């Protein structure tokens, strides 16, 4: 019945102008042009359908084989709104949405993330351990954020490969002596994973260590995160938490009576001699690092995630004393945006092998944001408080990790579907060093 009415409606539109052809030459020309265009488009659709049926090797049901006309030409076309949205979507090139059947060989999907920022601070002395990616610099100016490419490919229905490459502007990554500024390429993640089922997946590779939330929720995709920067406790290039992990990981999820328990168990090389680096060229000792991470997402509180982790390694740092490292962490996240709440805590314990005292360094942050309901929900103000304390006794962290407490207040504006502008003000109070105030503007995007 619906089809009949649609046909009648279209016929009613077309019938009257065609009936008046002799009286209106302009209308006749318009109809002829439209008919020609329809013919052209129909031919093009037929060509594409032929190509499609030749290249796609997806299994076709007997019903579809028996009725090829029906299978290839939907009897009811999509609604105008759906068609317009589909065209927009095609132009926007939404990366993860798959519109074709799987190919016979591996198909690689590529996506990218990037950012540009402008920063101005009143920092005029030593930065006290803050990394360049924090944008805390003695000079104001523009900064090129990381250029990140993500590649993913399904080798079979159960085996997949994922990688993330970054190009990062550094003062010493160029050529010449001394080295000029340039871009430093890095394989941030490279993972091959076998999925047995939802409960058990095993993978090997280089990961972002799954011992806290931020590190594995946003990775290098600054567009995904609300703020311009990561919290300092999980900053790239920072040392408080081992951001990267080389080894193997077992993960999975189980309903657990509506709690939705997720877990990760990992075994890997642990930190390198430079503590901010993973053991990419092999372990620096004969002791593997291991980790256990678990979190729940209860059905009854959709949006809530609560979890915790334990990590253990033995360190042989360039600076500081060889010793044992334990990390315990916990997080609470309300992932919806009205409001969005993220809070994490970590305790890093160092015990020197030579019998020195055990030192505990702590860090936490709490971030609150709210997607405002007006103006198409494009605006999202946020506030974050963060804190790191490294005791005098922790000689391993003392020169590497800044002790401070800081506030960040900002506003995110989603200027386009895949681009955001963020404006931020930060006030950091540092131990034994002057406070820092800074203003930052960034645009983050995915493509």
């Amino acid at each position, binding site marked *: 019945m619906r089809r009949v009415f649609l046909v009648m409606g279209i016929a009613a539109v077309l019938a009257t102008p065609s009936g008046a052809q002799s009286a209106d030459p302009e209308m006749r020309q318009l109809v002829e042009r439209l008919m020609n265009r329809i013919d052209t488009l129909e031919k093009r659709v037929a060509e594409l359908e032929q190509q499609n049926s030749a290249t796609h090797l997806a299994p076709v049901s007997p019903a579809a084989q028996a009725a090829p006309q029906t299978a290839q030409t939907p009897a009811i076309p999509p609604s105008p709104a759906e068609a317009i949205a589909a065209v*927009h979507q095609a132009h926007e090139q939404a990366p993860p949405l798959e519109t074709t059947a799987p190919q016979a060989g591996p198909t690689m999907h590529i996506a990218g993330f990037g950012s540009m920022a402008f920063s101005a601070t009143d920092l005029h002395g030593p930065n006290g351990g803050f990394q360049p990616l924090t944008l805390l610099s003695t000079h104001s100016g523009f900064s090129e954020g990381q250029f990140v490419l993500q590649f993913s490919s399904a080798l079979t229905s159960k085996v997949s490969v*994922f990688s993330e490459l970054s190009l990062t502007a550094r003062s010493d990554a160029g050529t010449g002596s001394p080295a000029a500024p340039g871009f430093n390429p890095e394989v941030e993640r490279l993972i091959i994973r076998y999925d047995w089922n939802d409960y058990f997946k095993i993978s090997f590779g280089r990961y972002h260590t799954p011992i806290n939330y931020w590190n594995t929720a946003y990775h290098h995709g600054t567009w995904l995160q609300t703020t311009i920067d990561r919290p300092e406790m999980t900053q790239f290039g920072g040392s408080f938490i081992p951001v990267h992990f080389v080894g193997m990981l077992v993960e999975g999820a189980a309903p657990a009576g509506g709690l939705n328990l997720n877990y990760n168990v990992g075994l890997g090389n642990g930190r390198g001699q430079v503590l901010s680096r993973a053991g990419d060229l092999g372990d620096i000792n004969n002791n593997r690092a291991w980790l256990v991470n678990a979190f729940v997402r209860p059905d009854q509180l959709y949006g809530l995630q609560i979890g915790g982790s334990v990590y253990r390694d033995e360190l042989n740092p360039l600076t500081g004393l060889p010793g044992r490292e334990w990390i315990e962490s916990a997080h609470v996240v309300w992932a919806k945006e009205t409001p969005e709440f993220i809070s994490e805590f970590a305790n890093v314990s160092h015990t020197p092998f030579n019998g020195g005292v055990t030192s505990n360094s702590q860090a936490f942050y709490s971030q609150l944001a709210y997607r405002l309901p007006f103006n198409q929900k494009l605006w999202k103000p946020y506030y974050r408080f963060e804190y790191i304390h490294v005791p005098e006794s922790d000689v391993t962290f003392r020169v590497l990790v800044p002790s401070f407490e800081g506030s960040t207040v900002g506003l995110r504006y989603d200027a386009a579907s895949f681009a955001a502008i963020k404006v931020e003000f930060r006030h950091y109070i540092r131990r034994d060093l002057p406070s820092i105030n800074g203003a930052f503007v960034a645009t983050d995007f995915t493509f």
Partner: protein
Amino acid sequence: MPILPTLWLRRIFPLAAAVCLTAFANYAGPGGDDVAIVVSPDVPVDNLSFPELRRLMLGEKQYWTSNLHVTLLMRAPGAPEREIVLRTVYQMSEAQFRQYWIAKVFRAEVQSGPRVVYSSEMAGEQALATPGALAFVDAAQVPKGLKVVKINGLMPGQKGYPLH
């Protein structure tokens, strides 16, 4: 002939008639606002709780069995069924939904996002052709050959059915 009646007969009346007929054609009758969850015949499930459905739609549950992967089929933006699913199951806006799947792929939790289909017929054809497929369609237009899954023990049209 006066200009106005001519204009009315040639342009406005046919357009108004088309709009009315199209609107009437889109009205699916009582209970037609419900969205049916359909799966390919090989899926060993007849009933899902609403939280289970949400886990499937979020890509958190990716396997029906160890050898049967869940393939999500998603109507393109603008479809009423998609709006109902976004509002009731995902509780997300279109922008949030897009960001959710970009992030999920970026976290290497899934290989790709849902497949996009542009009509109920296309959803039906894809679901029939894809083992483990899960799609949602207007309850008044369930394609033949697909299994309609109960949600919380209820079929579309029954009182308390959550997807409408």
